[in-house]
């Protein structure tokens, strides 16, 4: 696969077309119908959770949120390539991947609601909390992959980055080290075409992002990021290769951020409606659903039923997050493994201040 889709050839791996047809059977991954349905379900769940997150933010019940709409296949397809003992090192726009990894939606809502408990991701194994400083997580991923190699574990690491992140020094340093140290690591770049308002062509003069892998001695591939099968096939092949000691692999998923960069952004200021409509035709969920419907494995009726079931589940997860308390002690207790005396005193002083404040009349 990586020879056939060498980035120098400037071709993109696609398996599922926009109408739900398999156009590249050679690379169609070996998945049972149950697994494909499961994948669709996860993507649907992530999508509803994502849309609801934006609406909760709009209602003033949650803080700034980066929508994932339209990128579900890139996130889920790559996450499904990992085994239980493997590591996931997120950026911040891979909701479907985190959920698949076992992170509860309650934790996700807590995280974006500003609660440190949200970063615990306690239900999931071997996943780092989201990394908001752009690109720095790719270096952690190299370190984590190095530790797996060092401990002679047969596990691998997979990290995410966006198209904008590929301009950061950290990303280039990570690619460089990953190659020099030959660590078991897969880079997944969700090229969603925009870094806030900056389009892909202002990010780099390179023909593709995948081509960047070549300069560091890595393998690269460009895949249709809205095609679940293509992402899963490439990620699975990459995982297999790095697990067996091959060079790290960089996967560029060509996708589209249908929503805003975050809830603080308004994309109508910098992109055309026509462009958005083109990408709606390529929507990852529509395509996978079309495939399932064609195979007579799925019906609109089932889809609607599942949607309303998920809506209820998701609302319950948010309700739990919304009830979660925000005690002052949290900001002090997580600073060090054991709280130093000075910090403990600061906390006590602050509690005293709060008690005093309660007793005063404020106008």
């Amino acid at each position, binding site marked *: 696969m990586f020879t056939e889709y060498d980035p120098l050839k400037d071709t993109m791996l696609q398996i599922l077309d926009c109408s739900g047809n398999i156009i590249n059977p050679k690379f169609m991954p070996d998945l049972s119908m149950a697994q494909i349905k499961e994948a669709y379900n996860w993507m649907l769940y992530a999508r509803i959770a994502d849309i609801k997150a934006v609406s909760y933010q709009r209602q003033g019940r949650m803080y700034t949120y980066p929508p994932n709409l339209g990128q579900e296949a890139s996130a889920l397809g790559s996450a499904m390539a990992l085994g239980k003992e493997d590591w996931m090192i997120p950026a911040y726009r891979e909701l479907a991947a985190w959920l698949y990894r076992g992170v509860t939606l309650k934790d996700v809502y807590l995280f974006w609601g500003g609660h440190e408990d949200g970063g615990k991701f306690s239900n999931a194994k071997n996943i780092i909390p989201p990394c908001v400083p752009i690109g720095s997580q790719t270096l952690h991923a190299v370190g984590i992959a190095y530790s797996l190699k060092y401990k002679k574990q047969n596990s691998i690491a997979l990290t995410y980055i966006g198209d904008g992140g590929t301009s950061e020094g950290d990303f280039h340093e990570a690619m*460089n080290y990953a190659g020099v140290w030959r660590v078991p690591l897969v880079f997944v770049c969700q090229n969603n075409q925009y870094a806030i308002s900056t389009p892909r062509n202002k990010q780099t003069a390179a023909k593709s992002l995948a081509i960047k892998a070549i300069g560091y001695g890595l393998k690269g591939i460009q895949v249709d990021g809205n095609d679940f099968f293509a992402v899963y096939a490439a990620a699975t092949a990459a995982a297999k290769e790095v697990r067996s000691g091959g060079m790290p692999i960089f996967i560029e998923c060509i996708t589209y951020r249908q929503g805003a960069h975050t809830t603080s952004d308004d994309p109508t200021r910098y992109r055309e409606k026509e462009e958005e409509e083109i990408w709606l035709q390529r929507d990852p969920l529509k395509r996978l659903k079309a495939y399932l419907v064609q195979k007579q494995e799925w019906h609109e009726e089932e889809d609607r039923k599942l949607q309303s079931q998920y809506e209820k589940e998701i609302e319950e997860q948010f309700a739990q997050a919304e009830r979660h308390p925000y005690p002052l002690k949290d900001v002090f207790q997580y600073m060090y493994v054991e709280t130093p005396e000075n910090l403990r005193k600061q906390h006590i002083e602050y509690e005293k201040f709060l008690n005093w404040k309660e007793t005063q009349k404020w106008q």
Partner: protein
Amino acid sequence: MPIITYREAIRQAIDEEMQRDESVFILGEEVAQYDGAYKVTQGLWKKYGSERVIDTPIVEAGFTGIAIGAAMAGLRPIVEWMTFNFSLLALDQVVNNAAKMLYMSGGQIKVPIVFRGPNGPAEFLSSQHSQAFQSYYAHIPGLKVVAPSTPYDAKGMLKSAIRDDNPVVFLEAELMYAWQGEVPEGEYLLPLNKADIKRQGKDITLITYSKPIKVVQEAARQLEKEGISSEIIDLRSLRPIDEETLYASVRKTNRCVVCDESWPVASVGSHVAWLISKNCFDDLDAPVELVCSEDVPMPYNHTLELAVQPSVEKVVAAARKVLYL
């Protein structure tokens, strides 16, 4: 008791900890085959091999970030920055990731890591290679910052730093590497949060840390000739600061000079001066004096470079001022 150099004390600490715990490894520029730019890692590569003593490409942010990742996954990396002047390139990784990971993961992900190397003014290194950056690190919640001034302290504190589950910034100095001191054979550990009284006295408290300790010790000898008894406190730990030891001394002497080779604004020295002014206000017989570097980049010319740093004469002058002599 054997007398060894500061450099050898650090080397022994790293060696012993690597021997003791397989998850400890060291990485940085020139640390392996070349034995370290300042020969601190002498012989370690030969002993432990390329998996545990790693020469990195010249990218400080890169190997710092990688080490942070390795620490998240359970290893105990020691990052050697050739000097702290180069650590600026890695500052984002230290501040935004190492120092915050435990907090942002709700206490789940520990980052047991040591960032070490020479910091502060050296000689003939000019403005970009001869700077004191301890205040940058001491400012950051989530880090521990230590700056031992003797081989004994360096060894015991580095061993503790390597075993600590929090990120520790460990500050050495080029000009201290050849300093000698007694270090016992056999294992010992020193705490990362305790100051040390390096000289007992009753008339004035002189507070310092790291390389200026010798300047302060010489100043104390000069003052003694005038019949003034100085107590010298070596902070050793810059974050957290062992406040009680400082206050106990100042409550006894009622006078205090702080000597810090940083620039004066928002420095560890200025913070200590403020702490004492605030907490020992009723005990002080004079305002606290701060002896620090002049507020200018380090000159290359040797006469000028010495002129802008704390000196014995400057410390004596400050002491005389708070003693109203």
